């Protein structure tokens, strides 16, 4: 075979490699690399709060019970679902941060005025009044504000006794309707909301919505997700709530016990649920994250919580697929199984599983899945 012929056939081979490479989620890997390597210097526009203290007072007076709703816009296509990823991780315990210093002053801002610090900027988009308890802890008394916070800053905004909104180092928007309720809609990133009525905690991911109160207002989107960015992958439990409206009862998620010590006396299903919650909460600080993730994948699989498997797979992709992960094959199996159950033909998880582990156990339906995927 002469050089020209060899060159020709190798170039044909290279074309095939290029087509195979198209399924590689380079941007997903880039996100993972960035989030792992750059937490300390990243600066993100964080959130906008439009609130009114009157809302809080009225809400307290009527003694409403908080209703948590999750109306996150769900991915509609396989491609969206496959591309979904959560950019950041959730702290283990949602506690109010220790106050670094007591300031205790009222800040009144006219429309357009700003209040800045090295780690944040608060800009009023109406006439606003805030109470500053410490350098990074505020209480919004009245008005509308837009806030940018440096990533990594433990920044908290209270809305009276109704809720406590904690920034988890990423972007979101929040809005109240100005009457009886507080509504949160996350347009980007991750936000944690502590319901001060019942102590429950809810983490909202991008696209998620949460209602504290009875009626959902029509909230115009302040920031539309960009087409190239990721969307939130809901857990299977959330998938089941696609058709729910805000006025329906709160999902069971909000009623879960917050602490793992409540585990005593729980039956098998509850035990699983609480174990999952505990594992998820400690994931960020876990020293054996892949062990915990593997255990989570097993539990998710038992419960048919396929969306959560794909969620964690995306979130911790680089760690899961690392050569140092002794559970890599098993976790890849679970991810493939989840892809089959969720009909994710385009994500390439099963193709890679079969390619990497040709002799390994196959999840049910793998052959059909691969055939449809072609």
């Amino acid at each position, binding site marked *: 075979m002469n050089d020209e012929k*060899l060159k020709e056939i190798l170039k044909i*081979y290279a074309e095939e490699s290029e087509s195979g490479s198209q399924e*590689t989620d380079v*941007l997903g890997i*880039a*996100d*993972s690399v960035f989030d792992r390597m750059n937490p300390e210097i990243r*600066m993100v*526009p964080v959130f906008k709060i439009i609130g009114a203290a009157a809302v809080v007072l009225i809400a307290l007076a009527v003694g409403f019970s908080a209703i948590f709703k999750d109306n996150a816009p769900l991915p509609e296509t396989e491609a969206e679902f496959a591309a979904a990823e959560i950019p950041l991780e959730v702290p283990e315990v949602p506690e109010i941060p220790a106050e670094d210093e007591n300031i205790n002053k009222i800040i009144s801002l006219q429309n357009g005025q700003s209040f800045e610090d090295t780690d944040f900027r608060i800009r009023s988009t109406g006439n606003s009044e805030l109470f500053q308890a410490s350098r990074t802890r505020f209480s919004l008394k009245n008005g509308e504000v837009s806030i940018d916070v440096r990533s990594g800053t433990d920044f908290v905004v209270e809305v009276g006794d109704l809720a406590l909104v904690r920034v988890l180092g990423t972007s979101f928007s929040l809005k109240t309707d100005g009457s009886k309720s507080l509504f949160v809609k996350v347009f980007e990133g991750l936000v944690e909301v502590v319901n001060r009525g019942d102590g429950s905690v809810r983490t909202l991911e991008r696209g998620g919505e949460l209602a504290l109160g009875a009626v959902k207002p029509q909230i115009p989107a302040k920031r539309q997700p960009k087409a190239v960015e990721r969307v939130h992958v809901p857990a299977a439990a959330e998938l089941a709530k696609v058709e729910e409206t805000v006025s329906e009862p709160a999902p069971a998620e909000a009623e879960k016990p917050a602490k793992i010590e409540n585990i005593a006396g729980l039956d098998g299903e509850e035990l699983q649920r609480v174990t999952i919650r505990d594992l998820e909460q400690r994931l960020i600080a876990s020293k054996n994250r892949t062990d915990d993730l593997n255990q989570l994948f097993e539990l998710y699989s038992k419960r048919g919580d396929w969306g959560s498997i794909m969620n964690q797979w995306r979130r911790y992709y680089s760690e899961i697929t690392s050569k140092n992960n002794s559970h890599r094959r098993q976790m890849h199996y679970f991810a493939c199984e989840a892809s089959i159950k969720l009909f994710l033909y385009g994500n390439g998880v099963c193709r890679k599983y079969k390619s990497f582990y040709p002799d390994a156990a196959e999840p049910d339906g793998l052959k059909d899945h691969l055939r449809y995927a072609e």
Partner: protein
Amino acid sequence: MVKGFFKNDPADRLSDEELVRRAARGSKECWRELIGRYSKMISSTVWKITGGREADDVIQEVLIQLFQSLGTFRSESSFSTFLYRLTVNTACNEVKRMTSPAQAVPVGDEALTQLADETDASEDPVFDTLERGEIRRKVGEALAELPAEIRAYLVLFYVEELTLKQISELFKAPVTTVASRISKGKALLTEKLGKLR
């Protein structure tokens, strides 16, 4: 507050160099835009060199190396050239790592060089009659059986069209060694393709 963070310039309008500067200062948007522009190049180059084996891991390694280089990148060469070199270099290092000692190719094997010369002289009418899809399959199968390092040499030399000197710099090997291994690669590939017919 990070300087320039609140600038309203859409990332997709910024130059590569400006994106590098902003990504180095912590802008994820700029980092994503930068990677988005070259994601196809990165993945296809890695796939070609590794044959798809552990491609995701290699790409991750490329991006880690790139991220660590952001602060030190100087616009002496274009970013695309810089990134291409980084990608090829990292992929080659990973390929070397993948290649076990048992697969290592002896250097300066005259018999192999001779074999390569012999195969050079032979004609191969069979491939003239095959469809492209069939060629892809056969070549893919044959290449998959080659040692990773040999496969990388062949791809770099015949597909990426790097010179022997450039490849020798990438692999930190003498030019003669590179030439010898490419000859061996040709011989092995021809032999394997013959068996597949």
